């Protein structure tokens, strides 16, 4: 009898102890950094805080998130602000709901200017402090600052950046067959035709599959062509609905892209025919270039890290390595350089000194250099030294972003209302490459544009 009784409470206790022990394995006891080892000079301007916490949310995950944490570790040590970053792939879908319910993190990294506008409209955002705005004025171009501004109020500075519209190619193949990097869109067409004519493989490999966001790589194509064919002014009208989505100029851009994406002679190198575009994951779509069954792949600068899916450095990304990228050329030889790209805006949901100190740090050149030197990303911050970037392509991308002659435009689908930019435009691309006509697709997207 005594034994049974004893057993009765022993089991849960033992179980709890075992679970507790198992859970401790999940904890990484990170030793607190010793302030004495850190040079706190650059951080003096942000002041010191006692026991202040800042929670941060964003879409950045895994190794990129670790690097973010590393980039502000010294800042935490010197100012005493404890920054807790939480990344989620559903962040964009949830942030508005969280904000409405008053549960948003203190700071959000918003990858879509359209979403910043919506959050500002909802009255959930705290305007940027003078220090943040001063940094934005000093280190970013007017275009970039605009993405964090709504109705004349400045809400937040940009964080990182990526350049879209790179065309990846095999360096060895170009050398061997004497292909030149095209200087105009027509030359690109000729190059593609030449590769196709030589016969052993199709020139382009394309992958549009991306789970419930399937289709977005196709929107990047269209945006690149809109900007190059019609210039930044028409582009701005297009994303703000100044011209309808089924405008002939948009149709022209679609048809130009269709010369590649809807053409069985052009796609899908190493993978199949046009119908495989929507089932090939965007992450792996460029890889046929490595085994020579495809020559060209259109994807943003971030694709650099996808060349070695298993990690390591088997495939080198450099102008004298295995693969490298050139920017999708302008329409005419003399046209100024225009690029589309993306980035994050740092917005705040809580009014507090520590939050603004943290935002001021993120908008400074100190942070940009800290983060970029850790590798993998770039920023449009003008105080950034291109040489700290981790690769040739990133150095080149930073120089493009910092060049005052460059026309930069944010990824159009991120500027449009969610109903278009995160839904009907993607779906339209899928319907379009699987057979619908340009006119039909454009009319459908136009009809989905919200009236209010």
């Amino acid at each position: 009898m005594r034994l049974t009784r004893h057993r009765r409470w022993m089991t849960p206790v033992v179980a709890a102890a075992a679970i507790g022990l198992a859970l401790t394995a999940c904890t990484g006891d990170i030793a607190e950094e010793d302030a004495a080892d850190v040079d706190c000079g650059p951080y003096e301007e942000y002041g010191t805080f006692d026991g202040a916490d800042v929670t941060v949310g964003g879409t950045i995950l895994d190794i990129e998130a670790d690097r973010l944490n590393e980039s502000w570790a010294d800042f935490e040590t010197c100012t005493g602000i404890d920054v807790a970053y939480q990344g989620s792939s559903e962040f964009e879908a949830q942030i508005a709901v969280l904000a409405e319910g008053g549960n948003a993190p203190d700071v959000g990294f918003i990858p879509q200017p359209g979403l910043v506008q919506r959050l500002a409209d909802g009255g959930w955002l705290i305007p940027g402090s003078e220090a943040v705005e001063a940094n934005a004025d000093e280190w970013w171009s007017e275009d970039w600052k605009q993405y964090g501004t709504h109705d004349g109020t400045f809400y937040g500075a940009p964080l990182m950046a990526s350049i879209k519209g790179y065309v990846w190619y095999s360096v060895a193949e170009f050398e061997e067959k004497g292909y030149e990097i095209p200087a105009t869109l027509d030359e690109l067409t000729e190059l593609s035709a030449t590769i196709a004519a030589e016969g052993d493989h199709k020139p382009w490999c394309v992958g549009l599959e991306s789970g419930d966001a399937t289709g977005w790589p196709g929107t990047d194509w269209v945006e690149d062509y809109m900007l190059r064919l019609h210039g930044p002014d028409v582009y701005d009208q297009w994303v703000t609905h100044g011209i309808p989505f089924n405008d002939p100029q948009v149709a022209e851009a679609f048809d130009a892209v269709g010369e590649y994406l809807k053409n069985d002679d052009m796609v899908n190198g190493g993978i199949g025919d046009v119908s495989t575009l929507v089932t090939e994951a965007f992450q792996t779509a460029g890889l046929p270039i490595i085994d020579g069954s495809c020559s060209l792949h259109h994807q943003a600068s971030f694709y650099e890290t996808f060349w070695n899916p298993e990690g390591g450095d088997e495939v080198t990304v450099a102008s004298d390595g295995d693969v490298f990228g050139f920017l999708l050329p302008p329409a005419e030889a003399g046209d100024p350089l225009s690029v589309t790209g993306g980035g994050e805006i740092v917005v705040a949901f809580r009014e507090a000194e520590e939050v603004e100190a943290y935002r001021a740090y993120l908008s400074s050149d100190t942070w940009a250099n800290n983060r970029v030197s850790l590798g993998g990303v770039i920023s449009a911050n003008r105080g950034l030294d291109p040489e700290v970037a981790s690769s040739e392509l990133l150095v080149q991308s930073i120089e493009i972003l910092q060049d005052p002659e460059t026309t930069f435009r944010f990824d159009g689908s991120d500027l449009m209302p969610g109903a278009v930019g995160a839904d009907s435009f993607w779906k339209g691309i899928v319907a379009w490459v699987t057979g619908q006509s340009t006119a039909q697709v454009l009319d459908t997207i136009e009809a989905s544009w919200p009236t209010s």
Partner: protein
Amino acid sequence: MTTADLLGKILQVVMGLAVFAAVVGLLIFFIDKAPKKGRDYWQLGLFLLPGMLFVAIGLVYPAIRTSLLAFQDNSGDWTLDNFIWMFTQPAAIRTLINTVIWVALAPIISTVIGLAYAVFIDKSRGERYYKVILFMPIAISFVGASVIWRFVYEYRSGDREQIGLLNALVVAFGGEPVQWMQTAPVNTILLIVIMIWIQTGFAMVLLSAAIKGVPTEQIEAAQLDGTNAWQRFRNVTVPGIRGSLVVVFTTISIATLKVFDIVRTMTAGNFDTSVVANEMYTQAFRASEIGRGSALALILFVFVLPIIIYNVNVLRKQREIR
């Protein structure tokens, strides 16, 4: 996270549970001490209170708010645009049609297969094992099941080796591989197959239990009257399990109306496969068109309503017979 954090969190959980226990204990103590007069009502009221509170906060309030949002645009003005959009946009109409196809096929087929299976294995040797086999899929989440079936429907172009079971079979019989998930309307049917695969086990287990509840005397009496197996099944077994049949059928119907995971995992609503629940999420949270999402939610509610009313009606009639 450090060990100290973890300990802190565990402590929080323990404290929370302790506070909850204390509050409930206190409540029960006071109910016990309620005035003698009308003590029953006091007790009834207090015990119902927590449940009613949760229903009000978690169900009634959101339902009312969703209904109101369905008639508003993004800036909060009253409008019927959301419903106009739903019944005029080809893409939106497609989701409505697809949902109807789902509800027309999935519940009937899974109930029929489940019933047939239950009848055939009834009293056979190894009945238990046959049941386990068919019941297994129900233990798999919809997303898990979809991932499995994605491999079945997988397509590889041209001469590459087919890794998908379905296409491998097609090729083995000399056919051309098909991109199942992109070919409307076959893709919707193939998605429904997944639902049937999951729900048949549920139907089978419930119906099998009901069949065992049909009195042997009735069956034997029918046998003595010279009926054949089909007549016995048709005129004795089926009326005997009518209540269970309705419950199974309506439960699967409601699950089918709500289907979201399968569509989102397999096609994300592309290629004309979207259904109301998937479109509702997409519109409300990704496209941030709360009004359109709410309107779709309202439609879903209208779809479910008759099924629930039917269910309740049948159950009430059954009780009256008894």
